[in-house]
């Protein structure tokens, strides 16, 4: 555990540490020089062309990598100028209505014009692309890889290094060693060491091979496992090297075991957190209030759709119009809504989710309030009727989602700050997963504070324990019921806001979570919030561990369900059964 925490600190340092790289500063003159060279490379042949590529690899210019990349995609074209010369061009990304785009001359980066200075436009089928063959593409790719080694972006450099490391071309070793001396980022340094060692596995000198294997074992390089395996199984490898390779493989496999172990625990906690935020609302409406609320899933969907609408309001706006399938007195009924968007960009657009979270809570709470006043308040203590009535409501709501948002799923794009991940000792932690864990902790604490530390919480507990007695004491039970139900529904809305970031948003979103929610609450013990927390974490971790052990997502889930059935046979009240005389 200690080693992990040290590694964690190291990882954080890597994450926030200075990753300063001297980006090559190119001036306009340099730019023109490389562009001339590029044009020569495109038109050139044989040894002369090879030499130009060598020069280009040292330039470190973005223009070079853009053009070369386009070349490998067959997107560099030759324009036959009226004077008979051939002009290498590439097409602009932006196309007009006819699918035509302006042509950019490679030699000076200016748009291609006819004699009168009018810009020429082409489709990609109007022009002949420059021929490439396998060998030339190989050379271009190699040049691109070398260029990537000096890319200012750390991830791009690391990727380029890994790629060279797996190329099995030992000629890259000196290039990488030269880069190592200049490299400042510790992650890239590690990657370079790994790449050099991987390349040296292919050396003819057995001592160097064995040393490389040893080095890889020290670096715990998961990526080199394939190469070590190949080396160990190659009959031409000398016995001491085979031994070293096998030893290194054993060390790396041991490392993978630990990575999987910590990874699985993290996945389990994150799945548990999802179950928890999904079930927490139900733990209140079903657990505390005793209402079998089949529309809980649709409250989740309201939260998810709210996030979708907020996202659109930050973008191009949101509009819908529905016409009812029936009319009254011959008049077609229908209504529509058009909300103009903010057309926000950049960080402001990325922050839409922060606004979506509280709004999801309020929208779902509002829906819960209406549902309680309209239907549920008449059905307390009549669980069967409330089951049927809320199920009916859930169907109505699903159809409403279909009418307003369409039967297809809607697109919710995650903000960038939820998309990345960080890696600690090869265990990767997705930001969205870390976010859900923190999110779950916050709402559990919030719920606990509300129930145990506020006057409203006191009233809620009083009404839930004994409605008649609380009423006699002057508590307005109707109002407390209403607020409690709205709060539970609001929590479901929060869950929906988060689920929109990791899965589908569609009319049947709620259906996929309703069973899990009930399962979590029942296993935890009806009426116990802390029980729900334990059961969510238990089910989540068990699911992920079994998935890892059995290697199949289905088997894992089946085993979990069987365990739950057996558990409920043994303890029908769940983990934390409430023993109270007030429960009849």
């Amino acid at each position, binding site marked *: 555990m200690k080693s992990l925490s040290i590694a964690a600190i190291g990882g954080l340092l890597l994450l926030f540490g200075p990753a300063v790289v001297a980006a090559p500063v190119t001036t306009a003159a340099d730019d023109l020089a490389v562009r001339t060279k590029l044009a020569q490379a495109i038109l050139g042949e044989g040894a002369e062309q090879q030499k130009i590529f060598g020069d280009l690899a040292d330039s470190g210019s973005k223009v070079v990598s853009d053009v070369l990349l386009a070349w490998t*995609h067959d997107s560099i074209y030759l324009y036959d100028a009226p004077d008979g010369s051939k002009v290498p061009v590439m097409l602009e990304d932006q196309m007009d209505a006819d*699918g035509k785009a302006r042509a950019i001359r490679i030699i000076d980066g200016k748009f291609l014009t006819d004699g009168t200075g009018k810009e020429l436009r082409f*489709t*990609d*089928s109007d022009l002949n692309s420059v021929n490439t063959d396998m060998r030339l593409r190989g050379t271009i790719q190699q040049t691109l890889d070398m260029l990537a080694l000096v890319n200012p972006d750390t991830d791009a450099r690391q*990727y380029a290094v*890994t*790629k060279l*490391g*797996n190329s099995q071309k030992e000629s890259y070793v000196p290039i990488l060693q030269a880069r190592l001396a200049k490299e400042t980022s510790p992650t890239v340094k590690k990657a370079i060491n790994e790449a050099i060692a991987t390349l040296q596995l292919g050396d003819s000198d057995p001592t160097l091979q064995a040393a490389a294997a040893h080095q890889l074992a020290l670096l715990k390089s*998961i*990526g*080199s*496992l*394939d*190469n070590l*395996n190949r080396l160990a199984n190659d009959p031409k490898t000398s016995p001491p090297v085979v031994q070293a390779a096998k030893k290194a493989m054993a060390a790396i496999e041991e490392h*993978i075991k630990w*990575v*999987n172990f910590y*990874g*699985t625990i993290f*996945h389990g906690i*994150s*799945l548990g957190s999802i179950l928890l935020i999904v079930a927490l609302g139900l733990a209140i409406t079903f657990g505390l209030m005793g209402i079998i609320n089949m529309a809980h899933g649709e409250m989740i969907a309201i939260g998810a759709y709210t996030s979708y609408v907020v996202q659109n309001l930050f973008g191009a706006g949101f509009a819908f119009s529905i016409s009812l399938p029936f009319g009254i007195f011959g008049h077609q009924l229908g209504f529509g809504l058009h909300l103009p968007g903010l057309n926000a960009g950049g960080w402001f657009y990325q922050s839409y989710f922060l606004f979506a979270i509280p709004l999801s809570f309020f929208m779902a709470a509002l829906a819960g309030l209406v549902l309680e006043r309209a239907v549920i308040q008449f059905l307390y203590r009549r669980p069967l009727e409330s089951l049927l009535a809320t199920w009916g409501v859930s169907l109505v709501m699903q159809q409403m989602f279909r009418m307003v948002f369409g*039967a*297809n*799923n*809607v*697109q*919710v*794009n*995650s903000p960038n700050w*939820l*998309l*990345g*991940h960080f890696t600690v000792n090869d265990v*990767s932690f*997705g*930001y*969205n*997963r870390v976010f859900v864990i923190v999110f779950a902790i916050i709402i559990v604490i919030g719920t606990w504070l509300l129930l145990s530390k506020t006057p409203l919480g006191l009233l809620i507990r009083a009404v839930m324990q004994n409605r008649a007695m609380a009423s006699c004491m002057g508590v307005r039970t109707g109002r407390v019921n209403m607020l409690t139900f709205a709060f539970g529904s609001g929590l479901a809305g929060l869950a929906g806001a988060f689920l929109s*970031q*990791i*899965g*589908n948003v*569609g009319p049947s979103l709620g259906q*996929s979570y309703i069973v899990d929610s009930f399962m979590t609450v029942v296993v935890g013990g009806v009426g116990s919030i802390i029980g729900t927390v334990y059961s969510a974490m238990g089910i989540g971790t068990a*699911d*992920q561990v079994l*998935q*890892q052990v059995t*290697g*199949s*997502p*289905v088997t894992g889930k089946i085993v979990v369900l069987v365990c739950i059935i057996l558990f409920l046979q043994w303890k029908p009240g769940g983990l934390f059964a409430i023993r109270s005389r007030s429960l009849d």
Partner: protein
Amino acid sequence: MKKTLLNYLAVPLAAVMISSHAHAQDTVKIGVLHSLSGTMAISETSLRDVLLFAFDEINSAGGIKVGDKSYKIDPVIVDGASNWPLFAEKAKELIEEDKVAVTFGCWTSVSRKSVLPVFEKDNGLLFYPVQYEGEELSKNIFYTAEAVNQQATPAVDYLLDQGKKKFYLIGTDYVYPQTTDLILYKYLLLHGVPVENIGGGLRKDDAGKVISAGKYVPFGHTDFQQIVADIKQFAASGDACVINTINGDSNVPFFKEIVAAGLTPSDCPVVSFSLAEDELRSMPTKDMVGELGCWTYFMSLKTPENKTFLKNWDDWLATEDHPGVVKEHRAVDSPMVLSYDGVYLWKEAVEKAGTFDVDAVRKVLESGDMSFMGPGGKITVQSNHHCTKNVYIGETRANGQFKILKTFDQVSGEPFLLKGLDEKLASGK
């Protein structure tokens, strides 16, 4: 004065012409058998729409000319309701009661397997437009669909050419992904990819023969944490890719997890066989830029045929009045175009045969002469009931369209790959 006289003459003349036209104007019934309700409705309704479009286009161009008569198309639309036994019942109804000349329909392989005996018993004719796993050849079905060697194996060829050495197979647990992945597993072995470089796991029967390759999840699966962590380790060496045959909306959580894990298309591209433009409309495409797709048609194709097709389709959407056709935010994709191609191939075969008789039409189609310049390029029916057509590899763009990276010209469709691969593997050893 002269003008008025002419007008007087023209009116009765036109009336006579119309009535005589109406006399020669017969109709032919054509069956449309798709799920218009239930889980598959989202995908299959689009095919109903494009078929109606093709019928309207043919009708307004004068209909189908058989001998000296011309026939207008009278579509008989039935709803399979995503219920496979119901598909068989509806097929029986179409052939025996409505006496349709041909049926266009089915999406899932299980619905096709369910109607197959009906078409064979009653000697009907079915055109099937959706990529499928092969290993089937009925004399009563023409497959305009992509066979495995027109989608999966070209994609693998492309990835091998791009220097990918490790392949992770993942899919939804049913017949299409299982069969396709098994074929790919053998195909990869044949192309020198060692067993340990094929990820996702293998299942063997008691005799030790591999019966299933790859990782499978149920329909509607949402938790991909472990699988993506597994892929990430698999791809640590930087030369891996993922072959994705996940069907339906499980793709959304899958791709969100892929992005969150930092697996970019340059490290480890994902090539998907069940995601076309229509599906991408409800996917987070911004997070998927650069991932690959492989189909025999892309909406972004710049051929004149495709431009005309898209323009006519838009015009038709704006003016048509068929009930239930959604007009906004429509996309066109490969299954739709292959449905459309099927209608024209059948029309040409009927006109050449000079009769609607199933046996005669089949004979013409099997001759290998029937081809059509469709929106996706030239498509020719082969004697084995599959089609020769262009195969395209594309990468996803943020607007939900594909940028075409590579074209394989005129690939012939081959339904039976497993046996050939087995034989080659056996002789290689």
